[in-house]
Structure formats: structure tokens, C-alpha cells
């Protein structure tokens, strides 16, 4: 029973991290129709920016996390505005551009920081105990920040004019434009928002897991799994699927070993893609 509860806590904690990543990923697809292959790169970059701010600039960790969010958001904004916007309606070209950006970013990080993982521990240590249940404090902090960020994102998308504009563009770009929405203004903002979320996750999670130039690859795979399961472009679906993926991963890791869980998830996603491409809560978007 103790193991069962512990696995649930790990699963929820993982789910919150995956939700942050998946929301950014699905936001970009839902609004811009772009599959962002550089999403893992922004996660990795967020980790390295936070690390540099703490160890090279001497900033406190919370400020370093903010710096990571702004740096990845700014890079995302510029990338969308300067490059992606030119080919925004060609899905193959946008996919290739994001792939190209990922290769450039990971190579730049590799050149600057080297292939060895830097020492970047989470500033909070210890654990919270309630009877047989044991939760590392770092996981609690990450969970709290993730929940706040997800709530903030929902508030932004559903309670502000900016959010309404972004959702209108996601629903029907032509009608939204006829109503006065300006994609050239809103698309870079949406991209920056999503990459900022990836940067935030990287800054929060890499001190707990690991930081290296290749950490973006598994993150991309997890983001794919989550958004396909939830339905490409569906924010609610992505959040739900993130917790499903986190919990399934935690339980299968505890009871069967890591690879079995991953295989089960991938096969589940394959079946969903083939028979219900719109995922758990998704709907057909942009004829993707």
C-alpha cells in the first residue's frame, strides 16, 4: 500500500511536469498548426539559462527560473516572427524549421557547456512525511509551481482578450481575421508563451533529473505521447493526458520496470493515432 501511494505521488508530480510541457506543445499546434520539434530544445535551454544565472551570475534560483522563462520566451518570439512566419501555412516547412532550430540550439549548448552534465542541484532538499508517505520537498515545490503556471495559463486563455484572440485563431483563422484578430501579432506571442512554458519546465525539472545537451530528446518524445493521447490542439486533453502518462509511467516503473511502461504508452498512442487520431478530448484541427 505504501508503495502504491508513493507511486501515485510520483505519478502526479510527473504529470504536472508533463502537463506544462504538453500545454506549450499543444498550444503551438492548436493556434499555429505547427508541430514544434524544437520544444525539447527550449526545455533544455531553460535548464542551461537557469544554471548559468545561478552559477555564473550569482542570481538566486527563483530569479534564475524567471530569467529562463524570459530567455526562452524571447527566443521563441523572435524565431516565430523572423523565420516561422514566412512559411506558416506550409506544415512540412514549419516542421523542418523547428527541427533545424533544435539542431542549432543543442549544438550551441554543446559547444558552450560541453557534453558533461553540470552540477546543478535543486536549492531545496529534504522531505515531507505523513505516516508511511514520503514526498521529496523539491517535488512538492515543482508541483506547486506547475499547478500555478497551468492555472495562470488557463486564466490567460479563458479570461483575457489575448486568450480569446488566440483561441479564436485556433478555432477558425479566417473568421478570426475577419473579426479583426491579427495573426502576425498574436502568433509570435503564442509561440513565446509556449516556449516560455518549456523553459520554465526545464529550469524547474533539470536540477532534479539531469541537465545535458541531449535532455531535449526524451522530452520531445514525452510531449508527443501526451498531446497525441490528449488530442492535438486540445488544452484540456493535454492536461488530462499528462497526468495519465505520469501515473502510468510511475506505476509501470515501480511494478514492471521502466521499459514496459514506455512500451505500453507508445502502443496505446499508436492505437489511438490509428483509430482515433483526435485523441481523448481532441477534434480534427487544420486537417492535420
Amino acid at each position: 500500500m505504501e508503495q502504491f501511494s508513493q507511486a501515485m505521488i510520483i505519478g502526479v508530480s510527473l504529470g504536472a511536469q508533463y502537463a506544462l510541457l504538453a500545454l506549450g506543445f499543444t498550444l503551438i499546434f492548436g493556434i499555429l498548426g505547427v508541430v514544434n520539434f524544437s520544444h525539447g530544445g527550449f526545455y533544455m535551454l531553460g535548464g542551461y539559462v537557469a544554471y548559468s544565472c545561478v552559477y555564473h551570475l550569482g542570481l538566486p534560483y527563483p530569479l534564475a527560473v524567471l530569467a529562463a522563462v524570459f530567455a526562452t520566451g524571447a527566443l521563441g518570439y523572435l524565431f516565430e516572427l523572423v523565420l516561422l512566419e514566412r512559411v506558416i501555412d506550409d506544415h512540412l516547412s514549419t516542421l523542418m524549421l523547428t527541427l533545424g532550430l533544435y539542431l542549432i540550439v543543442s549544438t550551441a549548448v554543446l559547444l558552450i557547456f560541453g557534453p558533461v552534465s553540470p552540477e546543478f542541484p535543486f536549492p531545496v532538499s529534504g522531505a515531507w512525511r505523513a505516516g508511511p508517505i514520503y514526498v521529496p520537498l523539491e517535488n512538492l515545490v515543482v508541483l506547486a509551481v506547475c499547478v500555478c503556471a497551468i492555472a495562470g495559463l488557463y486564466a490567460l486563455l479563458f479570461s483575457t482578450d489575448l486568450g480569446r484572440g488566440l483561441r479564436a485563431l485556433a478555432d477558425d483563422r479566417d473568421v478570426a481575421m475577419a473579426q479583426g484578430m491579427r495573426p502576425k501579432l498574436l502568433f509570435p506571442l503564442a509561440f513565446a508563451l509556449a516556449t516560455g512554458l518549456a523553459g520554465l519546465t526545464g529550469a524547474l525539472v533539470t536540477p532534479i533529473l539531469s541537465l545535458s545537451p541531449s535532455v531535449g530528446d526524451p522530452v520531445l518524445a514525452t510531449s508527443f505521447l501526451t498531446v497525441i493521447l490528449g488530442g492535438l490542439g486540445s488544452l484540456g486533453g493535454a492536461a488530462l493526458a499528462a497526468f495519465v502518462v505520469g501515473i502510468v509511467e510511475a506505476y509501470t516503473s515501480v511494478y514492471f520496470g521502466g521499459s514496459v511502461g514506455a512500451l505500453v504508452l507508445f502502443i496505446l498512442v499508436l492505437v489511438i493515432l490509428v483509430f482515433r487520431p483526435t485523441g481523448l478530448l481532441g477534434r480534427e484541427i487544420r486537417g492535420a
Partner: protein
Amino acid sequence: MAEPVEGALPRSSAGFSWAGFPWAEFAACLVFVAAFAIPSFTRSQLIYSIANQALVGVVAALSVWIMLRMNLLTFATPAFMAIGGYSVAILAPMGVTDAFALTAISFVVPALLALPLGALVLRLRGTYFVLVTYVLSEILQLILFMTPDLTGGSNGISGIPAVTFLGTELVSNRAVLKMACAIGLVACLITAGVTRYFRQHFAAIEENEILAESLGLVIWRYKVIGFVVAAGVAGLAGFSLVNMLLTAHPSSFSSGSAVDFIAYTIIGGRASILGPVVGTGLLVWATNLFGTQGQLAQGMYGVLILAVVLAAKGGITGSIATLFRRVRGAN
């Protein structure tokens, strides 16, 4: 579903004209034939190694290119390479070392597996197809790790016996390179044959799949043919790779390597079969130029991908062809 209206897509077979001669396919095959001569000019092990890498890369890129002819971007190439490569690695220790038999096996096994898979995944298009092929590659990686009795698991299969050609063992580096040339030539001929024969069908699917279907073209049939042949060609690349390394290891077939093959094809140019050949040759050569700083290669691929997508959509061969047409037009 009605049979395709063949008359709607006439094949250009009425009489011979040089204008209709498949120059690009001929030139691509000529490259592989010319590669046989490399051992006659040099004994440099470095050149042999680069040539081998390029030949494996070209064959894998040809697999990507076949799918791109139908506007389908695939990340499943490493998965089918693994199936071809592991088929050889499993059968060779059992005594099946004949070059012809192994070439046939490495093509047929992935192609047969692609048949039911294709029937499933080819229902998808665009982004969903990209994602499903990525997932397929990830699943195959996990299966390789989880079946140690068959695939050696994380250790892979090593100590694979050398391929034999008419009873002679192809052990030396020269012989391995010539084998890679032969596999490349076979892959090029298959690719050229299929894409020429179904040229207009693939073009119709690439241009507008729904319109082509409404005109009576049985889309799924041609997509399955393309997918199966692309899987077989990728299997040949897997055989070539395993024959070069004499080892089959999961890391040789990681889903990330699909990015390299896509980069070769896009940068070389997707409009002609020469694109993957030129793109692979150039990028493998450039990667080796960096020598010990090979880590820069991925960044270089990134910059080239951005440049091609934004400035030269046809890739290297497409841009050269456009330039050639402009010069000819000006004259």
C-alpha cells in the same frame, strides 16, 4: 471503390525521345557504379569509411525520398533499417551468409512487415503521419531492448560472420565497400523503377490527394506500394550498415538518426532522385571535414535546413535546376 481510370494518368510510353529519358535516375545509378571504382584509386581507410557512411546514408535517404514523393514525411526509416539489419544479423550466424540471399532478406522482411503496418498508418496524413512514424521508431527501439533472446537487447548482436559472394568471404574493407556499392545500386534501381513507374500516381497524391481520389485514383494502393518499397529500401540500408559494422546494435537505429536522413533529402532536394544522393554525399563529406569536432555536424545540418527551407525550397539540386532553366531561358 471504382478501379482507377488509367487513361486519366497516361504513362509517357509512346515512342522514345531524349526529353523523356530518365536522366536523373540514370545519373543516380551512375554514381553507385562509379563508387565501385573507389578501391582502385585509393587504399585510404578514411576514404573507405566516409564512402561507406555515405552509401548507407544515401540508401536510407532514398527511403525517405520515396515517401516524400507522396508528400509524406516519415521518421520510420531507422525502424525498417533495424528490421533489415537485425534480420541479417540473426540469420548470418545460422549459416545464411550469401550476399544475394541476405540482400533479398533485408529487403523482403521489412517490406512484408510494412504491408500490414502501412494498411494501418497510411489512413493518416500530414502531421499525424509524421507523429505515427516517430512513434513506430520509438516502439521498435523499445522492442529491441526488451527482446534480448532474439536481438541481444542492449548488447546487440556482435561477431556477425562476413558476407560471402559466390563462396568468397567479403572480409576486407575494400570488399565491404564494394558490397555497400552493390546494395546502393540495387536500392537505387528499385527506387528509380518504382518512382518512375508510378511517377504520375505519386505526383497526383503529392499535388492534391483528395482531388486525385475523386478522379478515380485508388490512393491507398499507391501509398501502400510506396510505403512497402520505402521500408524495403530502408532494410537494405540496415543491411549495409550492419555489414559495415559487423554488429547490430539498437543505438545504430535510434529514432534520432531519422533526422539525418531527412536532412540529407531536404537539403539535397526532394524534386529528383539526385537530391538524396547529392545531399548525403555533401553532408557526410562536410561532417567528416569537422574531424574531431564532429559534434558541430548537427548544428551545420540545422543551419542548412533553415537555409534550404527559407531560401532554396528545392534544395541543392532543385536550385541548380532552376538556375539552369533560367540560363537556358535567357539564351
